[in-house]
């Protein structure tokens, strides 16, 4: 390993420590946000738009006000009078009001809010609100929206969060709110070369939903000139800034607390229920609580549906020489972080391959649907669906085994990616080798078994980590040698509390259970950009490591002073501090007691870890340093297709991710496996269905999620470790790695089994049966 790695006596990193909250989770004693005791709160229920696109005439709240228990009814127009354009929030574009002001842009958009004593009267009253609409022509289809009007927004409003969106301010007559282009070499020339082969296809990934089982929840209350929020959010630091901006008050007047999340996967971040809760508590000088129902949760955010027109060209020697992707992300009525998704996925839209000639156009498009936002993979699974289907077909065209074809073309350490940034700690080939070996890729396959057809497929994925970002950690070593770690990372099931405890324990030779992580509270825990994008292990982990290293150095100094020896002579071990010169020993409790002269004292260190980038060129998309590091993963699958029912049955799913170094192998395996199971859903059945802007399957009776019966017969999670030179103990994150190539691996195996390429997700039994019937008719 390179760089700042120093050997610590440790014994924490690389161990399968139990989750810090394992028992509390199993017994149901862990308190999620909605389980926490609160002061009495008014319940808030919103009245929602029944139109996909309309002007709001009048909002009649009289009958709602008359419902017993109702305290207030608030409309968007009233809020706009108080807050003006500050009411418009969003991480990339300031385009979304918490209550529609003069126009609704999707079916289900909040129009007015009822505050009542109890949920039941709030719900009754919300139904009593009547809105007079003047309908506008809606646009539902992403490609129609690209082509022209009607326009969902009159004018683009980039936020101040991302400086590089400034040039879009004031742009009119378009539904395309962001466009990223990646250009390198000459695609046309490369594609025309003699002996080359080109494949191309139109792909579609439908919108899907995160469906964390914990429902969205936010409570807010006003205390004089301060606002406090308790929210199920992945982004407490962001929410503090957003609410301070909205209310026009200082950051220290807003306190945001999060809690352990009951899953999130991108659903609970940026501005969700918090702006509405904040303005209601602030303006009504009261305490409010918003509990979304499952049906409402479907309206809060979605995963982008995406259309991709892609091509890939190999030369006569089977080298990939050109690739293109025209990506259209359906971002719905509000941009949320869609423009970032568009860029982050556009830069890897041609895959983890050495390709000298690329042409990518990635666009973020408004339509009259619920807003789409971040979802595990951040748009990259949608482009991977394209490049991993294309490369598979191209291998077949070239008469080369799909795994071997990829192996010849994969980016290796030191290679420069099409986006212009060199690769490091991204062992695609190692991941590919591991998964193909696991499923016995080169062993004979019994292809037919009665009505079953058996096949194998493989896919590789690449993603760049969010850059630049900021992480901070404050570490308190208590006199009794227990430690308290203050970070704003939110544990939502990925196990960050455990991972951070292990990183802190490693440098200080502490044991399991000795480091406690404080839940994010902006009054107490320091700024952290977001808990998302698999960034925490690397970024916050580095801040924690630095704080722990600084703590160890302090202990060494105190011990050296006590022993009367040089600092370099003292070692920290599991038994305390030891002098090599004169064999003196002191435990941490004795050392701190001696130093402070009291029990119960604390020694504090803090550290920051900030990453930087070189912004990509607006014309070519190129950057020599577009990201701090890369995620690399591969999936191989063996499955059967039932030709009578169209059902796919996964026999063996092998998933691998290069995590740099596994801080806790058990938790890494759970991320590799959990993301894979979610990906099986995306491949085979998971999708939000809209009819003229109306969700038709927005309940868990209608929306299918992977159950225990959808788990493959065998799952093999494989940890690949090519240490990152500046990762904490070499580590990187893992939350998204295996969901990225999952769906195409399954589709490639289906292709292998029945000879049919499916360019549209999901591969439902209906689609497969229809395609088999067409195949038969054609034959």
């Amino acid at each position, binding site marked *: 390993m390179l760089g700042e790695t120093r050997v610590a006596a440790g014994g924490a990193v690389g161990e399968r420590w*139990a*989750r810090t*909250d*394992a*028992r*509390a*989770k*199993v*017994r*149901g*004693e*862990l*308190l*999620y946000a*909605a*389980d926490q005791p609160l002061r009495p709160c008014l319940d808030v229920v919103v009245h929602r738009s029944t139109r996909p696109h309309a002007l709001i005439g009048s909002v009649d709240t009289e009958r709602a006000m008359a419902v017993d228990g109702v305290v207030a009814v608030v409309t968007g127009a009233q809020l706009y009078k108080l807050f003006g354009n500050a009411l418009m929030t969003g991480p990339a574009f300031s385009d979304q009001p918490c209550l529609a002001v003069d126009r609704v842009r999707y079916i289900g958009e909040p129009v007015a809010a009822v505050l009542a004593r109890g949920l039941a009267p709030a719900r009754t009253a919300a139904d009593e609100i009547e809105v007079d609409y003047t309908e506008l022509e809606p646009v539902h289809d992403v490609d129609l929206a690209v082509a022209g009007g009607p326009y969902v927004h009159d004018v683009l409003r980039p936020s101040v969060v991302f400086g590089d969106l400034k040039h879009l301010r004031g742009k009119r007559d378009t539904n395309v709110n962001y466009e990223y282009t990646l250009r390198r070499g000459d695609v046309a020339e490369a594609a025309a070369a003699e002996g080359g082969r080109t494949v191309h296809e139109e792909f579609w990934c439908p919108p899907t939903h995160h*469906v*964390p*089982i*914990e*429902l969205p929840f936010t409570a807010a209350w006003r205390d004089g000139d301060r606002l406090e929020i308790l929210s199920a959010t992945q982004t407490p630091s962001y929410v503090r800034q957003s609410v301070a901006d909205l209310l026009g008050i200082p950051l220290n007047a807003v306190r945001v607390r999060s809690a*352990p*999340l*009951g*899953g*999130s*996967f991108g659903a609970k971040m940026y501005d969700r229920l918090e702006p509405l809760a904040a303005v209601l508590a602030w303006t009504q000088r009261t305490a409010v609580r918003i509990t979304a*129902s*499952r*049906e409402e949760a479907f309206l809060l955010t979605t995963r982008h549906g995406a259309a991709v027109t892609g091509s890939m060209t190999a030369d006569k020697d089977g080298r990939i020489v050109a690739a293109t992707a025209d990506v259209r992300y359906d971002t719905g009525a509000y941009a949320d972080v869609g423009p970032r998704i568009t860029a982050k996925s556009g830069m890897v839209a041609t895959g983890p391959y050495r390709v000298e000639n690329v042409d990518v156009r990635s666009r973020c498009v408004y339509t009259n649907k619920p807003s789409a936002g971040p979802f595990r993979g951040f748009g990259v699974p949608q482009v991977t669906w394209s490049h991993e289907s294309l490369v598979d077909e191209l291998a077949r065209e070239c008469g080369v085994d799909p795994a071997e074809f990829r192996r010849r073309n994969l980016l290796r350490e030191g290679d420069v990616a099409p986006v212009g940034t060199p690769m490091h700690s991204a062992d695609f080939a190692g991941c590919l080798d591991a998964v193909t070996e696991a499923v016995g890729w080169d062993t004979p396959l019994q292809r037919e078994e009665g009505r079953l057809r058996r096949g194998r497929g493989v896919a590789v994925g690449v993603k760049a980590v969010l850059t630049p970002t900021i992480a901070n950690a404050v570490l308190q070593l208590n006199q009794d040698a227990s430690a308290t770690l203050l970070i704003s990372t939110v544990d*939502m*099931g*990925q*196990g960050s509390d455990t991972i951070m405890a292990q990183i802190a324990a490693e440098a200080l030779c502490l044991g399991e259970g000795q480091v406690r992580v404080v839940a994010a509270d902006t009054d107490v825990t320091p700024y952290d950009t977001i808990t998302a994008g698999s960034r925490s292990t690397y970024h916050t982990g580095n801040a924690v490591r630095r704080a722990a290293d600084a703590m160890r150095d302090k202990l060494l100094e105190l011990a050296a002073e006590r022993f009367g020896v040089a600092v370099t002579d003292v070692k920290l071990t599991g038994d305390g501090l030891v002098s090599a010169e004169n064999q003196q020993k002191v435990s941490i409790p004795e050392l701190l007691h001696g130093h402070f002269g009291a029990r119960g004292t604390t020694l504090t260190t803090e550290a920051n870890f900030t990453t930087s980038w070189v912004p990509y060129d607006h014309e070519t998309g190129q950057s020599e340093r577009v990201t701090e590091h890369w995620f690399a993963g591969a999936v191989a699958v063996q499955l059967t297709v039932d030709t009578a029912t169209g059902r796919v049955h996964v026999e063996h799913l092998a998933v691998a991710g290069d995590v740099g170094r596994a801080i806790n192998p*058990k938790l890494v395996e*759970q991320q590799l*496996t*959990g*993301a*894979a*199971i*979610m990906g099986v859903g995306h491949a085979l059945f998971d999708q939000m269905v809209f009819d003229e802007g109306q969700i038709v399957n927005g*309940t*868990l*009776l209608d929306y299918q*999620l*992977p*159950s*225990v*019966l959808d*788990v493959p017969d065998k*799952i093999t999670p494989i940890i690949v470790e090519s240490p990152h030179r500046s990762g904490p103990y070499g580590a990187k994150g893992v939350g998204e790695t295996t969901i990225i190539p999952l769906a195409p691996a399954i589709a490639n195996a289906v292709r292998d089994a029945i000879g049919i390429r499916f360019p549209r997700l999901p591969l439902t039994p209906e689609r497969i049966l229809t395609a088999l019937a067409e195949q038969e008719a054609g034959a």
Partner: protein
Amino acid sequence: MTTDVQMTVNGARHRVAVADDDLLLDVLRRLGITSVREGCGVGACGACTVLAEDHSVSSCLARAVRYDGVPLTTADGLAEDDDVVEEFVAAGAMQCGYCIPGFVLMGHELLAQNPAPTREEIAAHLEGNICRCGTYQEICSAIEATARRRQAENERRSA
């Protein structure tokens, strides 16, 4: 209409006034039992599972008034040394943990009916519970381990 009922939860009796349409889920949470959680409101995810006389019930669909005097068990009320809980912890059968109490209770119900379930029988019994984090393998392993443990204990006792 409001009725005074006796909710018997984990052996403790509570007299509560419930409306005819009060859901068992909401009444339990009003009593401070937060291991019972809403995930879907339509009986499709299992996060609100309780045991009523050892039978699993989706408390988001159940009317509280029908459980007057019926002994109810929730995961937080299981014995401190509950074997299913211990095997879930040992197997690492949790990620975000939100759905896990429901699975623990389903495990109890299954093992009471079938002390030696096959993997297929376990899966069939858990079909109605959703773990969005995808911890199914560990959950099934934990239930299998509990069955083995009970069997070993029985053999020891009878030996």
